[in-house]
């Protein structure tokens, strides 16, 4: 596997993002880069902070610390930022307003961002018939609604698409269709896509690069093939073992938030790690290279390198 080719230019870059809610640190020092024409997966269980990362990148929540660079610069005006960065939400049953027609949902962003396209064109792009435009959300199936949500995000003509578990609420039978639609759009529109999921198997299929989050931190990252086939971090290994098929979720791994937040100094995963060492409790592990562009934040690999 090669290094990321320079052809894929950086669209969005997050540096050292921290988000603290009262006492809980939801996101701790997260840095990542989204490139045009590439899909980056962010994998983690519920409570890992991955959805907070999406909201931070969509600027729905202000970060406590850190900065977000769009095309290499800080964008002060939120509307200008939203023209380039759009988001698709997890639950298509909640993300469309029940009182508005599909046409309204698509016309608004076109108007806000002064785009020349018509709602009909957007519907065609997400492979929905144009006569759905006069319908209300409750008249559509989950998959159809999610396509509408994607069309709405595309209306602004964005560079970056943040997809927060876009298929987890959909029937298994239609998930692939929606994922393929996203892949196709990414190719045609040269989108930088952030794909947030709890399902590491789908990350392998769908994403070029994969990051694994635990306890508000990214613990492992690299190209999807090596992260999913040769997982280095004990947590990633556990994730893959416990979810052999994409249908099974990782509920067994869920830890109460308090427990996660309790570890302050050392490695967040220490309490549940099968290979825990004494220093894991006291010192945060640095990132170590475990392959070409593949790294893990774990003391196991510091030994190996030394």
């Amino acid at each position, binding site marked *: 596997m090669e290094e990321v080719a320079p052809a894929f230019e950086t669209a969005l870059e997050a540096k050292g993002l921290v988000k603290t809610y009262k006492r809980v640190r939801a996101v701790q020092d997260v840095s990542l880069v989204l490139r045009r024409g590439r899909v980056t997966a962010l994998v983690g269980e519920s409570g890992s902070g991955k959805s907070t990362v999406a909201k931070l990148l969509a600027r729905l929540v202000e970060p406590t610390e850190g900065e977000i660079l769009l095309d290499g610069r800080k964008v002060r005006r939120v509307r200008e930022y939203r023209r380039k960065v759009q988001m698709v*939400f997890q639950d298509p049953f909640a*993300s469309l307003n029940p009182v508005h027609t599909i046409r309204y949902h698509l016309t608004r962003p076109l108007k806000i*961002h002064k785009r020349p396209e018509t709602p009909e064109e957007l519907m065609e792009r997400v492979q929905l018939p144009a006569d759905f435009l006069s319908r209300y959300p409750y008249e559509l199936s989950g998959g159809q609604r999610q396509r509408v949500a994607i069309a709405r995000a595309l*209306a*602004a003509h964005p560079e970056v698409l943040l997809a927060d578990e876009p298929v987890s609420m959909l029937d298994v039978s239609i998930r692939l269709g929606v994922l393929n639609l996203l892949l196709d759009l990414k190719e045609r529109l040269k989108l930088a896509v952030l794909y947030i999921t709890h399902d590491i198997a789908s990350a392998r299929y769908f994403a070029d690069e994969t990051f694994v989050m635990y306890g508000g931190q990214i613990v492992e990252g690299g190209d999807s093939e090596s992260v999913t086939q040769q997982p280095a971090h004990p947590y990633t290994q556990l994730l893959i073992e416990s979810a052999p098929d994409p249908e099974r979720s990782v509920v067994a791994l869920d830890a109460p938030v308090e427990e996660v937040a309790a570890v302050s100094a050392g490695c967040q995963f220490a309490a549940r790690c099968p290979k825990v060492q004494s220093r894991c409790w006291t010192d945060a592990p640095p990132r170590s290279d475990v392959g070409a562009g593949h790294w893990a934040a774990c003391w196991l690999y510091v030994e190996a390198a030394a």
Partner: protein
Amino acid sequence: MNFKTRLGLGILGFFTLIAVVGEWIAPYDPSAMGDDLLSPPSGAHWFGTTMTGQDIFSQVLVGTRGVMVVGLVCGVLATFLSILVGVTAGFLGGAADEALSMLSNVFLVIPALPLIIIVASMLPSADTVLIAAVISLTAWAWGARVLRAQTMSLRRRDFVEAARASGERTWRIIVFEVLPNLTAVIASGFVGTVIFAVMLQITLSFVGVVSLSTWNWGTILFWAQSNQALGQGAWWWFVPAGLCIALLGTALALINFGIDEYANPRLRKVRA
């Protein structure tokens, strides 16, 4: 729509009609004195006459308009205020919410009746519209409280976040995304306010702090009370107006149940 709601709408429609045409179909001038003094209901005077021979049926018919106008004006004004305060507080949260909630709770807790009595009696001319405005100032708080709670539960819904993410401005989100989802709550608040305003206006007229030059159901009761209709056994003097108030109030309450049941499916009749 169930029977109760239809009944409520029917009664309301009837009174609205009377409010419009009452002045023309009234058989007598309500203020004109006649020769039949304090006579019980008869063919000539369906609801009987007063001490001075005025026709009570005509007074009730003509007085309907004043009642309905105050109800409507207050309903509109107070609902507008409650939306302004309640939805803003619920949507913005934080310090703005604290301050606005405090304001509406203060208005809720302070006993409105004595305060309005003082204001109304201090005003040099307490005509219908002015009274309606004063009543509105005390009637918005309950609606604001309910709307705030509903807005808070809507605020974190994904479609509001999605509207923000697609670049909508805050005022547009409040007006076009949140408000349409509150229609049932706003409607029921409106109806509740109308009940409150009608009761308060009639009370103020009965107590005698409002101008007695225009007729409404409360002024009929005021004259009945100040002429000791009770002691003279002239039940027809105060029964019709009171029954009209109760009927109108019941109609509005029934409409409100209809709205509540529509909005909260759990209250709907259990299906057999």
